[in-house]
């Protein structure tokens, strides 16, 4: 280091040590090898890898793998190998604890955290090669474009759920906390038809949406309409919806258990479209369906008589009733539509995550609320716009902040919107009361 004249000798030392990361090697190394120090081998999926300096495995390096509701720590064995079993087929972040690397060795770019997606085979490889070589990365611009497209996909799916929540709020004044369970219900219905009853998936999804519509009708006829007749206040109704949310959520857990289950075709291969953008056929179909349904919904809301009546009730329920609109009938249709769209969103969310779990709807409930609030409570198109923004924000924010904080961005936006423009983007001031 005698040739060093800057104030940062340690930086220079790192210069010879370059991280070479290989993300998602399709075939992978012999991951479950006997020598690898392994954790959670009984779990269905797994991440494994090597930590090497100049081709030599490094022993005793600590790594942690974390994802939604799960985390595990592991230490490399004498060959630098490690394995961590994970419960779900989703994204996990792998963190290399730099302080456990040998003296003088560090991660050059200060990013010892990598995201890994559990691949088709249920096993993924995440190698930290610490030694000479070239870094293999995707340029920032390409990543941004890819994230934007994933964000639009996620946002469209959120939009399907958000529009329904917003319509229900507009016509009945209810902030429905059970909307997340309506999302889960759709996915579970698809599981029932597509996997348990083995109906072909192209028929199972419409059946699931139809069953969701029926669920919406049943909720309105069995619970919400009688409560409206009793004249129960909206705060009370909101807490009833929380009780309903708990009930439905745990009834679903009662039947499908705590595990994640998959729909057929969830692992359709990704097609490289351009740059870093790789979408599967399922993703493309999902986006197509979302757009078609939203357009059909917009036509219904703007052009049909029931759609006009819905907007009239959202504006002023008493005036709407006085001008001869059958409010009960319209509200019933709104519940059926909201539930059907939430159910469809659930099916798409099951492909996007991927996986069906009893609390999957609850996981995005607050994002749906964020979308609805951002767009303006009670406005259907505002909710859709808000959902797109939230979806894009959630996906692109993981470029700047740790992946496990990506929902935080959307929730902060929710609170900031309430601070500066409580009526939302498309809402009107009078609604904030």
């Amino acid at each position, binding site marked *: 280091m005698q040739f060093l004249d800057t104030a940062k000798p340690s930086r220079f030392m790192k210069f010879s040590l370059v991280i070479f990361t290989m993300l998602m090697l399709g075939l992978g190394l012999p991951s479950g090898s006997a020598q690898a120090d392994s954790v959670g081998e009984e779990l269905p999926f797994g991440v494994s890898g090597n930590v090497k300096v100049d081709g030599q495995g490094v022993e005793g390096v600590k790594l*942690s793998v974390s994802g939604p509701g799960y985390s595990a720590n592991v230490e490399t064995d004498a060959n630098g190998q490690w394995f961590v079993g994970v419960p779900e087929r989703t994204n996990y972040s792998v963190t290399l604890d730099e302080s456990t690397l040998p003296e003088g060795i560090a991660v050059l770019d200060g990013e010892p955290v990598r995201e890994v997606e559990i691949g088709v085979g249920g096993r993924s490889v995440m190698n930290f090669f610490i030694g000479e070589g070239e870094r293999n990365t995707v340029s920032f611009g390409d990543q941004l474009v890819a994230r934007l497209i994933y964000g639009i996909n996620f946002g469209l799916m959120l939009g399907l759920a958000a529009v329904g929540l917003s319509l229900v709020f507009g016509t009945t004044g209810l902030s429905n906390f059970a909307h997340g369970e309506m999302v889960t219900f759709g996915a579970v219905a698809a599981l029932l038809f597509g996997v348990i009853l083995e109906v072909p998936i192209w028929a199972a999804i419409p059946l699931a949406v139809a069953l969701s519509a029926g669920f919406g009708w049943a909720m309105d006829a069995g619970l919400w309409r009688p409560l409206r007749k009793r004249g129960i206040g909206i705060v009370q109704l909101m807490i009833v919806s929380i009780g309903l949310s708990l009930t439905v959520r745990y009834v679903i857990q009662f039947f499908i258990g705590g595990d994640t289950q998959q729909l057929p075709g969830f692992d359709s291969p990704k097609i490289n479209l351009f740059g870093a953008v790789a979408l599967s056929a399922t993703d493309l179909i999902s986006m197509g369906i979302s757009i078609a349904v939203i357009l059909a919904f917009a036509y219904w809301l703007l052009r049909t008589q029931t759609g006009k009546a819905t907007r009239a009730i959202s504006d002023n329920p008493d005036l709407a009733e006085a001008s001869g609109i059958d409010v009960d009938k319209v509200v019933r249709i709104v519940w059926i539509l909201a539930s059907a769209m939430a159910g469809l969103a659930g099916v798409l969310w099951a492909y996007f995550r991927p996986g069906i779990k009893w609390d999957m709807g609850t996981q995005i409930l607050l994002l749906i609320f964020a979308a609805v609030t951002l767009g303006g409570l009670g406005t259907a198109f505002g909710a859709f716009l808000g959902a797109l923004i939230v979806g894009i924000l959630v996906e692109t924010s993981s470029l700047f902040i740790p992946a496990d904080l990506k929902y935080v961005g959307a929730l902060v936006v929710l609170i900031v919107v309430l601070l500066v423009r409580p009526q939302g983007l498309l809402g009107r001031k009078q609604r904030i009361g």
Partner: protein
Amino acid sequence: MDWGIILNNTLAAILTPTTLAFALAALGLAMHFGFAGLLNFGIAGFMAIGAYSYAISVLTFGFPWWLAMLMGIVGSILFAILLGIPTLRLRGDYLAIATIAAAEIARLLFLTTSFTDVTGSADGLFGYNNAGGFNDANPFPPGSYGFGPWTYNRETLWVVLFGLVVLALCVWLLWALMRSPWGRVIKGIREDEDAIRALGKNVFAYKMQALIIGGVFGGLGGIVYAAFANVSPGVYVTSLTFFIWTALLLGGAATVFGPVIGSIIFWVLQAFLSNVLPALATAGILPISSTQASTLRFVLVGLGLMLLVIFRPQGIFGDKRELTFVK
């Protein structure tokens, strides 16, 4: 099926650190919702802030336990102020969504691997009760105390005693506040905000004070729970908030003792169901697996909450005239 054990476990739930922590949090909600009419759905966030502030103050900053617990209170106050500034001017349901979001933000920040050094990430924090000297401050010599279902070891007895003292102080404070002129203004805000504003009161300031006091109760609930069990981010989920709401509404939202009694009833029922349902399943009386049997009690919590709000919104001890669901 051993009814003796089931009965014993059920009765034991009357006085446990968990029940005490629940009662404190429910008391905070009573201040927020029952008396001030603030729809706070972020009480789990207040508990998390209290528990983490206590644990982090000990483990990261090396504070003694009493100072660390004071930091837990300070943390709850700061969280209340931070939350109140943007949201207290909003209508009820907006406040509900904002508070539930804030509690989730807090939980996700505690859960992220970015701050593992301080928060312990998904593993949570432990060992602070020894490091901070809370366990050393235990005045009881080793041994077994109490009788029947209420038999505690030295450590649990100390937490129970500590929790009881804190709870008694908070109940007294709430009772005293609610019969003071301040309390009458707070109840007035709940009934008609504009009328109170017309009397020249600063409604925002009163609401903020109520949010802070209730938030401190919630934070103390988190601290008492942390004194008993490890601090883990998996505890402070939105379901916890909903369970505390259920406990509050059971007892009666606009009462001082209701939240305490409600928490006891909630945990006694939980203990009973979590013992009796799997036992019925194992004995073959219920045709379900024992995992399903333990899920069933949460279904019953949800159903109970719905029926309670529909048919007896004032709770068991509440007065129908002091119904807080006015809007």
